[in-house]
């Protein structure tokens, strides 16, 4: 029963495959645990960076232009913020990819949305990076 559902190349080939070869084969998904691992790694990074950024951001509540600009020009603010944007981009793209794959089953719609997901993340992320870089280096 399981032989017919999951045919292996041959008993001999199956027997001589090393654990490494099996791991590299990665099964029918053809990709390994990158999605899972990246989501967790960026989750940990986000948690730390959000705390660092929020603690500084809350001090800018109702701040005027000069104060906000000065705060954003400080590397203690801009560097954690840029790191958060980078880590957040990866995290949110993976998260939205999962949501799309869970709910959108029509092939064309799914591919279009997955593409838009990547476009959106890169556009928003680069907008943030551009703004912080202009504040830090520009006039």
């Amino acid at each position, binding site marked *: 029963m399981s032989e017919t559902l999951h045919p292996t190349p041959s008993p001999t080939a199956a027997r001589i495959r090393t654990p490494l070869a099996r791991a590299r084969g990665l099964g029918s998904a053809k990709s390994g645990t990158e999605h899972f691992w990246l989501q*967790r790694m960026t*989750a*940990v990074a*986000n*948690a730390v960076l*959000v705390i660092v950024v*929020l603690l500084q951001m*809350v*001090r800018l*509540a*109702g*701040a005027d*232009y*000069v*104060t*906000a*600009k000065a705060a*954003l020009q400080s590397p203690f603010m801009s560097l954690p913020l840029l790191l958060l944007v980078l880590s*957040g981009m990866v995290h*949110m793209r993976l*998260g*939205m990819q999962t*949501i799309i794959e869970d709910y959108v089953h029509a092939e064309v719609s799914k591919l279009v949305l997955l593409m838009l997901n990547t476009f959106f993340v890169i556009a*928003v*992320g680069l*907008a*943030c990076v*551009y*703004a*912080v870089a*202009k*504040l830090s280096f*520009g006039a």
Partner: protein
Amino acid sequence: MANAEIQRSKPRPLSPHLQVYSPLINMVMSIVHRITGGALYFGTLLLAWWLIAAATGPAYFDFVTGIMGSPLGLLVLFGYSWALLHHMMGGIRHLIWDTGRGFDLATVDMLSWGSLILSAGLTVLLWIVGLIMKGGA
């Protein structure tokens, strides 16, 4: 052939879905984790907008902070900050589960309630500090 057509046109039985379950805290927090994740995704537009405004100049910055400081703007920012903190608490809960721990029902319920209570508490605390800062500035 005709029989097959008739059989195929009959509505197929569907397995019970969300509406038949009474909401459990763990299930609600799982749904909320996804919703807050989606909200944060589009909420990054607010962060980008605010940063672009700061990089553009004083006039546009005042215009944007004026909108964000309006009652509706503050409500959106309040919701955004809660979504951020709740997604973070939910994420920490998931990281605990990733280690294989905390799967007994008592702990599952405790972690789910904990993420809700902590996120609500931290959001209120954040805004109290923010309002004090604003008053002091």
